[in-house]
């Protein structure tokens, strides 16, 4: 089945130790998103890629970076995790059509990050 896959599902890291979260998709979608969702809060968009074009949200801290080496994969790098970065990180994909329309977003299961 076509899907959005996130690894690992749970990640424990130490304060200040860099961590990388991974997202892959078999939907062949050209747009990929990273959201941060804290407990009982709405998902907050961090950034997204349209193909290789990176779009950062204005309020995303510099501590968060992303890479998209190819259509299928996208990575979220947290350079120096703080206690406040503990959250669920959601990857989503969608398809922008040649006419400019965009289909709905499909979400992965998320990676729950714990910072000790």
């Amino acid at each position, binding site marked *: 089945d076509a899907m*959005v896959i*996130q690894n690992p*599902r749970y990640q424990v890291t130490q304060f200040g130790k860099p961590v990388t979260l991974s997202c892959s998709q078999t939907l062949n979608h050209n*747009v990929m998103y990273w959201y941060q969702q804290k407990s*009982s*809060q*709405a*998902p907050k*968009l961090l950034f997204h890629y*349209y193909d290789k074009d990176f779009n950062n949200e204005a309020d995303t801290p510099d501590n968060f970076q992303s890479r998209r080496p190819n259509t299928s994969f996208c990575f979220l790098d947290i350079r120096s995790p703080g206690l406040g970065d503990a959250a669920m990180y*959601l*990857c*989503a994909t969608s398809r*922008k059509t040649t006419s*400019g*329309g*965009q289909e*709905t*977003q*499909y*979400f*992965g*299961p*998320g990676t*729950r990050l714990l910072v000790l």
Partner: protein
Amino acid sequence: QKEVEQDPGPLSVPEGAIVSLNCTYSNSAFQYFMWYRQYSRKGPELLMYTYSSGNKEDGRFTAQVDKSSKYISLFIRDSQPSDSATYLCAMSAGLYYGNNRLAFGKGNQVVVIP
């Protein structure tokens, strides 16, 4: 004022009851309204999708949009224990790349008691 307001308070109902959820919003540019269902430790999945004002029904689920009041609702009839999840409302101004950013509510946790 937040763009989208959704009371996150947990809602417990007995099996078979009607579940009523709602969101209010402040941005009059929103035209596309969605409800996502998120099971524990899973990502959100699209449940209902509505354009502009009106009602949409899909099985036991009904979505209503009242743009004049900036108010949207989701009703679940004959609720089942499998409906226990968090329900997030989301909305966007458009469907085209560049104006389709999703604004989410905080989510409403629903527990259906057998």
